[in-house]
């Protein structure tokens, strides 16, 4: 009422949004039509509620501090950080320090309905109810206070009917005559979600959608703009029918639409990539990995589990886009001591999140950001990578300790990130041929706001342990020309169990697979004009991350890990360096003692 929570929306939609805010503030049933203005053009008509995710969202979440044993954060027991006072303190800090950079969501995570001994509370309709100790003013008042700062409010629920809400099956469902909790679950009270903390909802029963509608109604009435639905499967460490919550997510999608309030629906955690189409259809974002938090004396630690994201994100890259984004979890880079990370690690963390176009929500104590943390969170050039029109980056080299990620931008430039994931400083090279062009290119360093000049053929930089660089590369040379060699070509030599198989996604409709336990694929006549190191682009398929030994001629193999392509029907590419002599060469892909990806094709640059 005091100001619009939708300040960042384009001017034309602003007026409608203000109307909506007024309506929501009056706790009336908002007409569905009012939810229309922000619906993106490329989504189906029934996805009106996902409008807020035109870009990855930015903000703050409570969970990192709740989950940490960092001294002083949770003085009243585990997870006790979550209180109205703390949320409002962070709201104020977000508004003061970060709002002008695009950060807008203040997200209340798990526990708002539990007391400090983690005992949950429910209303007379089996819906989660604010814990009066944590949130004495109630959830609506908090949302109002957040909105008053020109920010958006987020809230959290686990998927399913929480066991504590069941009430012997006798609890009535709000606004659903004759329905009780017994009517929305399975007769055998099978459990669901990542912790088996809820009874699985049976959506074949007419009362069940009503329960979700009632939860959505509360949240909308309170004025929340964002819901994190947690423990969702397949995912959250679970699989199988019992943990398949696709119907729950669909029901939430429908229920949110019915409220008329645009509420961003975010799913958590480690969602099953096999259901990516469902998540895209019904939600605005999905956590691709486990919690980033370490549940230790800091908020996170590099190994537990920031660094997992480099391996786990590439399979998801193609699924990100307006309306739904790959969520890498909280970005805890604001205070080195509390985060438990080095400066280099914090920069790499922020770099990956930005280039992957993950939502950018920090879990830091915003009242205690250090100057370096503030500079990371407020670098406009880096935020623009995350929020701009360019596609998310993916690895252009193998997932080796030194790796390069890139995205080709609509304006012809490239976003290029260099990573050194090794535990010691190392040089990392981005070779222009791995990006698809040759010759010169101008390089801008985004973190340091500096034009570095023009680089011929490649750029090499020294990176600290777990370090990174982030560049915009503007080609000034020419397009790379390559020679393709198909893996299924009869000119190749297959050994072990290696065999040619059909592959609809592959060039030529075939690939070479069964590269395991000694299986090898050798390209026999790879011709280049000049001796040198060539970045050979490998088109491959691998439903999980797999390694392969690569060598030219009689050299010794170099083992490279190829990131997962997400399934066995999708082709992706990475480039690997191979040293070739002038004239004819062999290039061998050897599974060695393990299981290697299926190979579709290699493209060998005509110049090294």
């Amino acid at each position, binding site marked *: 009422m005091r100001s619009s929570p939708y300040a960042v929306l384009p001017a034309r939609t602003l007026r409608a949004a203000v109307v909506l805010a007024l309506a929501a503030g009056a706790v009336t049933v908002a007409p569905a039509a009012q939810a229309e203005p922000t619906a993106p053009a490329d989504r189906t008509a029934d996805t009106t509620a996902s409008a807020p995710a035109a870009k990855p969202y930015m903000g703050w979440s409570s969970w990192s501090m709740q989950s940490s044993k960092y001294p002083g954060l949770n003085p009243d027991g585990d997870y006790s950080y979550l209180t109205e006072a703390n949320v409002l303190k962070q709201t104020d800090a977000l508004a003061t320090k970060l709002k002008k950079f695009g950060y807008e969501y203040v997200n209340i995570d798990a526990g708002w309905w539990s007391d400090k001994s983690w005992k949950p509370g429910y209303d007379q309709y089996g819906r989660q109810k604010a814990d009066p100790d944590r949130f004495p003013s109630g959830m609506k008042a908090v949302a109002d206070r957040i909105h008053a700062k020109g920010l958006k409010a987020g809230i959290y629920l686990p998927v399913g009917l929480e066991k504590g809400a069941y009430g012997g099956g006798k609890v009535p469902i709000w606004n659903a005559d004759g329905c009780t909790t017994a009517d929305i679950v399975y007769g055998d009270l099978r459990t669901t979600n990542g912790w088996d903390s809820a009874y699985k909802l049976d959506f074949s029963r007419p009362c069940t959608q009503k329960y979700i509608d009632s939860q959505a109604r509360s949240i909308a009435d309170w004025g929340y703009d964002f819901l994190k639905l947690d423990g969702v499967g397949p995912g959250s460490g679970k699989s199988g029918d019992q943990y398949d919550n696709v119907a729950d997510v669909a029901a939430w999608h429908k229920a949110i639409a019915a409220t008329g309030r645009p509420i961003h629906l975010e799913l958590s955690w480690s969602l099953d990539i096999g259901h990516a189409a469902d998540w895209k259809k019904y939600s605005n974002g999905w956590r691709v990995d486990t919690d980033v938090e370490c549940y230790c004396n800091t908020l996170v630690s590099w190994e537990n589990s920031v660094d997992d994201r480099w391996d786990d994100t590439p399979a998801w890259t193609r699924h990100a886009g307006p309306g739904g984004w790959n969520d890498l979890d909280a970005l805890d880079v604001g205070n080195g001591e509390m985060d438990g990370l080095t*400066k*280099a690690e914090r*920069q790499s963390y922020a770099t990956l999140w930005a280039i992957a176009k993950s939502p950018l929500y920090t879990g830091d104590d915003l009242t205690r950001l250090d100057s370096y943390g503030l500079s990371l969170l407020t670098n406009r050039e880096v935020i623009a990578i995350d929020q701009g029109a360019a596609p998310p980056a993916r690895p252009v080299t193998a997932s080796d300790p030194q790796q390069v990620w890139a995205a080709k931008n609509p304006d012809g430039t490239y976003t290029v990130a260099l990573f050194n994931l090794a*535990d*010691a*400083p*190392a*040089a990392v090279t981005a070779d222009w041929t791995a990006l698809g062009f040759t010759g010169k290119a101008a390089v801008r*360093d985004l*973190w*340091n706001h*500096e034009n*570095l000049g023009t680089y011929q053929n490649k750029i*090499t*930089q*020294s*990176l*600290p*342990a777990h*370090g*990174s*660089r982030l560049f915009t590369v503007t080609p000034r040379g020419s397009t790379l020309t390559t020679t393709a060699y198909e893996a299924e070509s009869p000119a190749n030599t297959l050994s072990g169990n290696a065999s040619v198989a059909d592959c609809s996604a592959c060039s030529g409709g075939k690939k070479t697979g069964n590269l395991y336990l000694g299986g090898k694929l050798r390209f026999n006549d790879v011709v280049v004009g000049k*001796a*040198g*190191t060539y970045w050979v682009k490998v088109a491959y398929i691998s439903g999980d991350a797999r390694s392969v030994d690569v*060598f*030219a001629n*009689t*050299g*010794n193999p*170099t083992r490279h890990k190829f990131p997962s392509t997400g399934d066995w029907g999708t082709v992706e590419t990475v480039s690997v360096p191979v*040293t070739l002599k002038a004239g004819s060469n062999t290039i061998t892909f050897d599974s060695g003692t393990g299981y290697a990806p299926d190979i579709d094709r290699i493209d060998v640059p005509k110049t090294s």
Partner: protein
Amino acid sequence: MDMEPAHLPRRALLAAAATTGALAALPTFTATAVPQRPADTTAFTNDPRHQLWWRAPADDGSMIEQGLPVGNGRLGALASNDPGRETLLITDATMWTGGLNDSLDADGQFPYDRDHFGSFTLLARLTVDIPDHDLSAVTGYRRTLDLDRAVVTTSYVRSRVTYRREIFASRPDDVIVLHFTQSGGGRYTGTVTLAGTHGEDAGTSFAASFPGGLRYGAAVTAHGDGGRVTVDGPHVSFSGCEELTVVVSGGTNYVPDAATHYRNPSLDPERLARTKVRDAAAHSAATLLRTHVADHRRLYGRMDLSLGTSSAEQRSLDTWERLRARARDEQPDPELEAAYLQFGRYLMISGSRGSLPLGLQGLWLDGNDPDWMGDYHTDINIQMNYWMADRAGLSDCFDALTDYCLAQLPSWTDLTHRLFNDPRNRYRNSTGKIAGWTLAISTNPHGGNGWWWHPAGNAWLCNSLWEHYEFTRSSSHLERIYPLLKGACEFWEARLLTTTLPGTTREVLIADSDWSPEHGPLDAKGITYVQELVWTLFGNYCAAAAELKRDTGYADTVAALRRGLYLPQVSPTTGWLEEWMSPDNLGETTHRHLSPLVGLFPGDRIRPDGSTPAEIVKGATALLTARGTESFGWANAWRSLCRARLKDAETAYRLVVNNLRPSTDGGNGTAPNLFDIYEVAEGRGIFQIDANFGTPAAMIEMLLYSRPGHLELLPALPDAWAASGSLTGAGARGGFVVDLRWQDGRPTWARIRSVGGRTTTVAYAGTVRTVRLKPGESVTLKDLAR
């Protein structure tokens, strides 16, 4: 005669001291004479053949793999070269905990711990923080180790300013210097911090002592141009400096003198360090550098090596990429391989001058508690450390080993007499007699032993000391080592047992119960390792006595003992030269040690030239083959040396190449900084310096074989180096220095210079020439390959 006049007074002094029986205890950290400053101000050449370079620095977690070593022979450091935080882990060769350690454990062996036996340990940590120069914010990072000048240079660009720093450890000024410069209008702002690593407070200087009584201390000073440098609590702060010079020094009150229990009670190391940094800082960094380079080059320039020409592609890679490419492509990289050898020489010059000798890690540590205490291992490692020195024109650097043995001898003798025949010691003399001296597998600088007794360690050390005499023909050296040789012989005279060989009536002398390092039975008599070493010791002693015209009667006794020694035979079961007096393989087939092959290398008893029964050569070769080529560092180096002796060029080279494999994730091989890494446990690699000397020794041995009276050119030249190459300044046993050029696998030119030798044959393939020279004379041979 091309001897360094500067050495003569010192040699003379030591010889005089030795003859009076009171060893001259040259304090290792002491006020030094005013350095001689070279007048020459000519620019230094930057020959890329002598430069190693990298595109990335080290950090705290990777100092041993990526830190760059500097040292002045006594005072050393590993430098991180991180732009935003330069870190130097500073060592002094005498910085050792522990003491005499003369209470045996219940098993009659020595305690082997950091308190009693002690450990080599860090002296100090110096950091120079420049917060604005975070590695993530600079571009064009590069650092270079110039082996020829012994300078580490780091350069990078920050906001269009090129910054550059040079680090070197000066022997003449006895300090480490860090000189920071820039071009383009940049400024340095930050802090310098000197801190002890044993709980001492940071400050511009500090002092402390160990429970064993050793005092130590260090000091730092800094000055800048165009800005402010101030002492700020425990730090030195600098701001707005166009240029900055930091000077650090330190040391201990150790003296190599058993009579004073290895301490100089009147020496205040902190005060001395303060004096040294103050005196050095009175000179410009350019002057300090010039003085240092002249001093280093005096030794470094004595040998040069070319193994051929590398490709432009190879040259474009940094040292680490080059190692990886070498392993991946299996393409020889002759300049890298030659630089690897020169790096070994650089380490020797930096780590073995005027103080204690090089232990398991030489002068360089990344923590206070190195594996095996960073000690002196006498069953291969310390010997290997010094196989290269004489071969590589660095005979001066060998003196640290001689000095050490002499300084320890009174204590080793005392401990032998008091403790060796302890009834709990399984290795005690069953004869009940005791004489002379011996030691344990591990030794410290405080006169103490650690771990198990190692009876034959005395013989092996003496044989190394004798070989140095063979290379240098230095009579003063012979005078000095004679008591060591004689004492070792006396020990064996008391220990040897007479036995009748089974199935014969032949009586032989065999060594009492012992352990062939470091496998198989613990109590075997007459093991090959000991028989060979003692046989060589006795021979060397007799030669020494003859040269010095001393102890004729005793020499006859020793000669008779030598004739009675049992020498190993070939096992009818395995076909190998026996390691134990048994036809059976009682140990590990591919064990790292080549103890039963000490007669092949470093010994001369087993020779493939027809002078040794073919069956013995065959048995030795079979054993070597069984040991394999896939061991690690020093074990591969020793194998390579043996292969060179057998003229098996390609296997010798393969073993060198195996050691050049890049070490990743702690695996065996060569680290980015060229330190040799031994994987002690899955994923945990440690630095052991012996391979950094053993591998170069093997490379030289492939190009030049020598024993007194006989030289052989290119005995095991591998195809990879055959096209063309040259070696100048290589030491040869018999007292010669050899320069050599080759083309298409054959020598085209050789010059033999006498440094004391008089007659030798020089052979290549079937051609043999006899050369007669007086000391200082040389002869050129051009037609050996015709």
